[in-house]
């Protein structure tokens, strides 16, 4: 394994330069680069670094975004190189060395979807090359990478940096947050989130020498494991719902089931605490998928539960006390049965299957309760397509970034400190002077 690891590591180093160094300096001096000028009517040319599973998911969505054109791809693993070119479908130029991609003057923007340990250096290089950046979550790997990233972003104010926490662009989550801001949940005090699977979380390896390259998520040299790859999404949801980043975290975890040579945990449980005493209880296991994936956001007036493509709202039966006379408006004949309420009111009508029984139909009907309380109907969307459409709009039209530096940094910090809490068994506090 060590030998294979060394081979892979050399492959990494060949293209990533000093990627594994703690802090990587930009190749270009700050004065050298200029942000790509992209007029509203011109085509946005982009390149992508890393065309593995996530990279191709992004690429597939990006090919559908009007006005954007993939002109270059970069990867060091031949099957991914081929997959990237095929997914782009635009006959892009392939580069083994991503720096050659950055050298191209006709590229306006770059997508980075590589293993986590390479994010910071590639982000800095891309900014230095004058390109706009879309970087996959988690934004960075090590705590000490935050400051150089902040500095580089500040030094390139004309360049967009968007982080690929795609729930920020998901209509379901946006709608849930709108409800939270409107007070549907009352005071949000608790988020419970989990990502449970019953699999080894590995990708197939055709040749053992590629083990570390393909299954980089298993190795601490490259990855923050479950926290970085799964919790990062859900921490971002909690940060968004609570409107803050955590102040401390405790955690536990281990390699207790899949004892297959991996270095990152096969289970992790953390409790993040927020400034107002709110908590995020997060769990991931790889030996049981019964409760699968979801986020439950709980306030003193209600709960929103979100799973993939499905959101349900549950009200709390809490007495309301007010002074003086109220405007009384009572709707008759609009029964929401307890059965429907127990199964939650769907945030999207289409989350209720068409061929269901009465309870599900009542859920569909009960959705109208939300409308009557001022929550508009919106269709579900493709979050990947939406975040990349937003990225193009930010670059070309100055539209606000869907998920920017601050959200990305808050998310990365929580991942780093969460892993530290698990590793040390101690409560980890956020530094007093952050940001």
């Amino acid at each position, binding site marked *: 394994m060590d030998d294979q690891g060394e081979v892979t590591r050399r492959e990494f180093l060949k293209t990533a330069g000093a990627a594994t160094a703690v802090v990587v300096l930009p190749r270009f001096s700050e004065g050298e680069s200029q942000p790509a000028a992209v007029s509203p009517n011109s085509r946005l040319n982009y390149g992508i670094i890393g065309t593995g599973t996530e990279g191709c998911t992004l690429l597939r969505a990006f090919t559908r975004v009007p006005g954007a054109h993939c002109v270059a791809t970069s990867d060091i693993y031949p099957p991914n190189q081929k997959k990237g070119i095929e997914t782009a479908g635009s006959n892009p130029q392939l580069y083994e060395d991503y720096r050659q991609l950055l050298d191209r003057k006709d590229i306006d923007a770059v997508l980075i979807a590589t293993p986590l340990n390479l994010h910071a250096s590639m982000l800095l290089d891309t900014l230095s090359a004058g390109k706009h950046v879309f970087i996959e979550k988690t934004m960075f790997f090590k705590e000490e990478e935050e400051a150089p990233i902040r500095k580089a972003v500040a030094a390139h104010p004309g360049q967009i940096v968007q982080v690929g926490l795609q729930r920020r662009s998901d209509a379901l989550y946006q709608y849930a947050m709108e409800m939270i801001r409107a007070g549907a949940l009352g005071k949000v005090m608790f988020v419970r989130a989990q990502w449970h699977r019953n699999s080894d979380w590995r990708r197939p390896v055709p040749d053992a020498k590629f083990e570390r390259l393909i299954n980089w998520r298993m190795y601490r040299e490259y990855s923050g494991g479950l926290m970085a790859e799964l919790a990062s999404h859900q921490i971002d949801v909690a940060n968004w719902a609570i409107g803050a980043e955590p102040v401390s975290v405790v955690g536990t975890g281990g390699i207790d089931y899949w004892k297959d040579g991996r270095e990152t945990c096969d289970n992790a449980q953390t409790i993040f605490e927020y400034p107002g005493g709110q908590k995020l209880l997060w769990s991931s296991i790889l030996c049981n998928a019964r409760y699968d994936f979801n986020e439950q956001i709980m306030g003193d007036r209600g709960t929103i539960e979100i799973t993939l493509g499905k959101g349900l709202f549950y*009200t709390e*039966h*809490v*007495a*309301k*006390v*007010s*002074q*003086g*006379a*109220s405007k*009384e*408006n*009572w*709707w*008759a*004949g*609009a*029964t*929401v*049965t*307890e*059965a429907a*309420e*127990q199964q939650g009111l769907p945030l999207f009508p289409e989350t209720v299957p068409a061929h269901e*029984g*009465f*309870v599900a*139909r*009542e859920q*569909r*009907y009960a959705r*109208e*309760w939300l*409308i*009557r309380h001022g929550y508009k109907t919106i269709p579900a969307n493709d979050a990947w397509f939406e975040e990349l459409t937003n990225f193009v709009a930010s670059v070309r039209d100055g539209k606000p970034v869907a998920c920017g530096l601050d959200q990305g940094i808050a998310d990365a910090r929580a991942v780093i400190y969460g892993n530290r809490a698990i590793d040390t068994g101690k409560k980890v506090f956020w530094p007093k002077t952050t940001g």
Partner: protein
Amino acid sequence: MGVFTAPWLVAFTRLTWFAASCLYLADTMSDELKRYEATHASMGTKFTVAAYGGDVRLLAATVEQVFEEIDRLHEQMTRYQPGSELSFINREGASFPVRVEPGLLALIEKSLRHSEDMGGAFDITVGPLMEAWGFFRGQGRVPTQEELQSVLKCIGYQRVKLDPSNRTIHFDLSGIELDLGGIAKGYAVDRAVSILSENGITAALVSSGMSSIYALGAPPGEEGWKIILRDPFDSTVPADVVYLKNFAMSTSGNYNQFFKLGGKTYSHIMDPRTGMPVENMLSTAVFLASATDSEALSKLYVLGVDASRQYLATHANIQALFYLPAGPEKQFKRVLIQSASYSLPPDSLVKFTGDLAGSHIA
């Protein structure tokens, strides 16, 4: 208080406690009007009470008592729990006369009277029919003719025999079952109103899932409680507005509870006389002095407008508002009728607004 406690500390503690109590009482019993609203899940629906008063503790405690009573009624009258009194009646009623709690006996007696008066359009033995159409399993299905005929044999309020003097009930046919789903929630609303009144609350609204409502008194500064009757095709659109005071109303409607099979849409409201879903009716709202009665009479929906007219010719103090289909594009028309003998009780109000305010009541 221990023997070694200093007298000054005892006095101070008592004084502090007394002062705190006074402050608390002053806060909760101030003359300033307060509104207390709470909901509670029971009987397969959501009960809501909104009440006004000066003492929020009294409001809260009374509403809690209301919910306890509703839960008690649910445990007594549910047919889904084997241990309920109703389940016992259903199991043994055909075997021997079963002794019944007076409140439940009175409700069954009232139900049977309504059934008789409405010629079986309302029938508390309808449960097996609802099962045959799949309403209790959560999936709609169309029973075969054979099934339907078999089920109809087990439906008939006439098969339920009461002996008030011995407080017993007996079924003269095996297979008869009682289902109080069409009246119990209205009864619970009336019980809630009694508890509120007994505790001195004079302005409150009680609803069972907004299908049966009692408006006790009126909100401060208002002549009655504002009730919005929804458009039968769209729950977000108001069709009519009525103000109620010391009066009840109930609705029956297709609303969302229908199912489609073979290109045909079936209502969840069954005609116990034919075993078939009611057609050509969207919704019905009835207005009476009691929620128990209004819930039962919301099944004027089953009778339809013409037969309801005949019913109201001999039954006093009822108004019924029908929403009927009036075109292919979700159009509807209203028909408002009332008893030949109609006079509101003193200090009660049923006031329609908009189109219905000046309409001629047939």
